[in-house]
Structure formats: structure tokens, C-alpha cells
């Protein structure tokens, strides 16, 4: 029996493996694109949350309260609802509500506040004495951020990126339900709406592999960064 006929026997409803491959690629693209933008947006936001927090270098209670509220609001809306609510914003930003492009804005807006909190937590782990030492050396706040906070917290930030990437895998799958494509779309349309449960099995298996892979890579990076 050839490999193709084995697959045919195991998953009789999957007639187009190319479509499945395309869905995989779409999911990876959505994940990569949204993760990059999430880090780009969430990292400065996390630093800002940290710096303006109570008793910190640039404590600004009002600004902190506003930021924290915005972050909490975005984090408390379930992603699938956030995606629907954000549709006009998405359309204004990228000109479509569908496909990979349409998925990226809600993914980033959903994940960046979450990642920002993880960054804030990682920065709070940096020993205050090290920051004081940098101040005593005449470092500016920006120099402390670049030279002390980010390097000292890099393992924690890498762990935060891993957790965020895995959360984004879940979000992209949810996005499939409202037209963003990818593995979630296949699972929903074929596996759920058309009762082709073998689609469900394969997509779930692929998602598990993806999450495992992300966690393993993330753990390795964290281990390397904390080895000193």
C-alpha cells in the first residue's frame, strides 16, 4: 500500500491535501505576522507599564491607571468577540475583514496587551539594586531600559513571547470561524459544519504539533538566555 492510499484509507473525507497544506501555511503566516507585530507593540507598552508603575523610575499614577485599564479591557473581551467588535477598525486599517490580512489587526490588538503584562512582570523581576547601581553611575532612564532592564529580563521576556505565541495559535484557530482562513477555518467548515471528523482530527493534530514545537523552541531559548 502506498503512502497516498494509506492516507486515503485513514482519512476518507480529505480529498484535497493541498488545501490542508495551504491552510497550514496560512496559519503559520498569521502567527508569524501577528507575533512580530505583537512584540513590536507589546514590548514598549510593557516597558511603559513598568516605568509608570507605583514606586518605579517614572512613576505616573494617572497614566499607569489609564494604560492598565485599557490593557485589562482588551484582555477581558473574549477573542472571538473582540474580532467581531474590531471589524470596522480592521477594515479601516487593512482594507478587508477577511483572510490573513483581516486577521492580523485583531490578533495583534488581542495579544499585545497580554504580552505587555508579561513584559511588565518580567521587568519587575529585575533586582532594584542593579537599577540603583546604574542610576549611581549616571544612567538616564532610557539607558537603564536598554542597558539594564531589557538585558536582565531577557529570559523572562523570551518566556513571555513563547506563551504569547501559543495563545496566538489558539486565536488564529478561532479566527477561522469568521473567515480568516487557516487550520481553524478547515476544522470549522469541514470538521464541524460538514461532519467530516477526519478533518477535525488532522487539524487538531497539526495544532498540537505546532504548539509543542513553539514550546520546545521557547524553552530552549529561555534556557540559553538564563545560562550565565
Amino acid at each position, binding site marked *: 500500500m502506498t503512502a497516498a492510499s494509506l492516507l486515503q484509507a485513514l482519512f476518507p473525507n480529505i480529498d484535497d491535501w493541498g488545501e490542508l497544506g495551504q491552510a497550514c501555511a496560512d496559519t503559520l503566516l498569521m502567527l508569524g505576522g501577528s507575533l512580530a507585530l505583537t512584540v513590536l507593540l507589546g514590548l514598549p507598552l510593557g516597558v511603559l507599564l513598568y516605568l509608570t508603575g507605583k514606586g518605579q523610575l517614572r512613576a505616573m499614577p494617572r497614566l499607569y491607571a489609564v494604560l492598565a485599564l485599557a490593557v485589562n479591557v482588551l484582555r477581558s473581551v473574549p477573542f472571538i468577540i473582540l474580532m467581531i467588535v474590531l471589524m470596522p477598525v480592521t477594515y479601516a486599517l487593512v482594507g478587508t475583514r477577511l483572510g490573513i490580512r483581516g486577521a492580523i489587526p485583531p490578533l495583534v490588538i488581542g495579544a499585545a496587551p497580554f504580552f505587555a503584562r508579561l513584559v511588565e512582570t518580567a521587568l519587575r523581576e529585575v533586582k532594584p539594586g542593579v537599577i540603583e547601581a546604574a542610576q549611581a553611575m549616571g544612567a538616564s532612564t532610557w539607558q537603564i531600559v536598554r*542597558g539594564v532592564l531589557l538585558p536582565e529580563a*531577557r529570559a523572562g521576556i523570551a518566556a513571555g513571547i513563547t506563551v504569547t505565541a501559543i495563545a496566538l495559535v489558539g486565536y488564529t484557530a478561532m479566527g477561522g470561524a469568521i473567515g480568516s482562513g487557516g487550520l481553524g477555518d478547515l476544522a470549522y467548515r469541514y470538521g464541524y459544519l460538514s461532519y467530516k471528523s477526519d478533518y477535525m482530527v488532522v487539524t487538531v493534530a497539526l495544532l498540537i504539533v505546532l504548539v509543542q514545537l513553539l514550546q520546545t523552541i521557547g524553552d530552549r531559548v529561555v534556557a540559553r538566555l538564563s545560562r550565565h
Partner: protein
Amino acid sequence: MIRFIDVHKSYRVDGREIPALQPLSLDIADGEVFGVIGHSGAGKSTLIRLVNLLERPSGGQVLVDGVNMTALDQAALRRQRQRIGMIFQHFNLLDSQTVADNVAFPLRLAGERDAGTIRARVDELLARVGLQAHAGKYPSQLSGGQKQRVGIARALANRPSILLCDEATSALDPQTTASVLQLLAEINRELKLTIVLITHEMDVVRRVCDRVAVLDAGRVVEAGPVADVFLHPRHPTTRRFVDEALPEEAATAQAPFARVPGRLLRLSFRGEATWTPALGRVMRETGVDFNILAGRIDRIKELPYGQLTVALQGANADHALAVLRTAGIDVEELAR
């Protein structure tokens, strides 16, 4: 020179002002090692942080080399801080950076970009603290004493005129403490660096300081040359610190001598007097007898000193005391 003029500091806690330092005035001369000793909570870490304005005074002036620190804007304050090195009890090194990068950090902060210049200066600094072989290691691979040496190299990087030591040896074992203090004394001598150190150990003060201030509940209760304060403590807090540094002396406090006949005296020798056979001479010349009950001969920084508790017997006692005093020995009669 560091000058405190009527400096005081209080913290606002739950809307109430909690005083940390009572108004104090203090001059620390160029090139001296100035110690501040006090128990935890006495205000000494606040005091040392007033020098580089890590803590802002609630009132009064802090002058460093004639510059009024509190009047500086942020940029000028940062430049001034680069001229003031600081080391810490827990070293406060960057764990994510190598020894060499830790030492290079203040150079980069000060705007040095040339990799060759940085490397040369780092090598020179690591050689000074005896860590050339460890440049590529991370702090977690070093012992406590080595970490503090990295801290010292880092503090010296921008050629400061002042070095602040915040309990720099409190986390170290006695042997490592001795070697770090020796390094500080060497730096003070060779670089003509002013050192301000805070500690809760009189022994640290005795080994390296020229002058000392004793801090108790936010107040300077005693200050002066270390030999004076150490040999003749006046304030009870100072006496406690001195007793801690001289355990045998404290253990043999007067009580056990109650039955010893004669007049109970404490003789303090300093400098040259330490090496003269004064007791023997006085015994021969005046015919009195000394019974040595307790004693210690040691050094205060480079100054040799001795302190003996003796019982004096004989008819000519007053004359003997006068002879001792003219020989440069400090005589205190102890109550019994």
C-alpha cells in the same frame, strides 16, 4: 571635598513625615577614608545616598567638590554622578553580562564608543582588582569577594574622585572582608580617592578609616579621628560598637576585677609609645607593681596602638601615673 550643611531627610509614609536623618553638618576632606557606623535603621544608607543624590535631602545643602548637588538639573546630575563611584553590599552586577561588560558599562554610559579604548581600560581595571583571568566569566561564576572586586573595578571606571561604599563587606566572610578592605585602602592611597563607607562593624572602621561618625537614630552622636573614637568612646552607642570589635575586652568588663587589689587603670598607647617599654621603666623608677588584667595590641589603619587594663599597687602610685602620662600614654582610672 564633600560638605553637608544642615542636611536633613524625612520620608512621607501614609501622610506622616518620618524623620530619617536629623539636621547634620559634616565635612569630608579630599583623600580621606571616612566611615559612618550605625545600626540598621540609624540612617546611614540614607546618609551615603545623599552624596550622589540617590536620595534627595528634605532640606539643607550637599556640596561635592564645591558643586551644590541639589541645584543640578538631570543632565548635570548624571554627569556629576559619573565622577562618584559606588559599590554595594549585594554587588548589584548585571547578571546577564560578563565581568568585562559589567566593567565597560559605565564607560559606555559616559559615551565611550571606541571598542579598543574600552577594552584597554577594562583590562587595566581588572588588573588593578586582580581579576584579569575572569574577564569572560559571568557574575554567577564568581565568589562574593570576586563579585565585589568587579564592583570596585566598575566603580573606578570613569576615574571618580569619590568612592561610596554601601556596606561593601557586610555580605563577605572575614577573610574576604580583609582582602577587600586592603584593596580599598590601596586604592585610597594610590589614586588619592576620597572614600565614604558605611558599616555596622567597628572592625571595618578600625582597619581602613581615618575618621568616623557614629550615627544613632538619625543623629551623629560622636565623630572624630578613628583612634580617638575607638580608644575613648564617649557615647553609649559608640562604646557598644567598640566592645563588639573587642570581644575579649567586653567579656572582661570590670566585674571580675573586683577582688584584684590596687588601682584599676586603662592605659592606651598610640604610635611610637606602643613600642617603648614604658611599664617596665615605670616599675623600676617608682617601685610600683603592675598586674596586667586584659589587653590588646593592634593597629588602627596604619597606627599601632595598645590598650591594657592593669591593677597598680604601691606607695608611689600617683608619681607612676605622671611618668606614664609624660611617656605619651593615656591613663584612665576605672571606677570599681
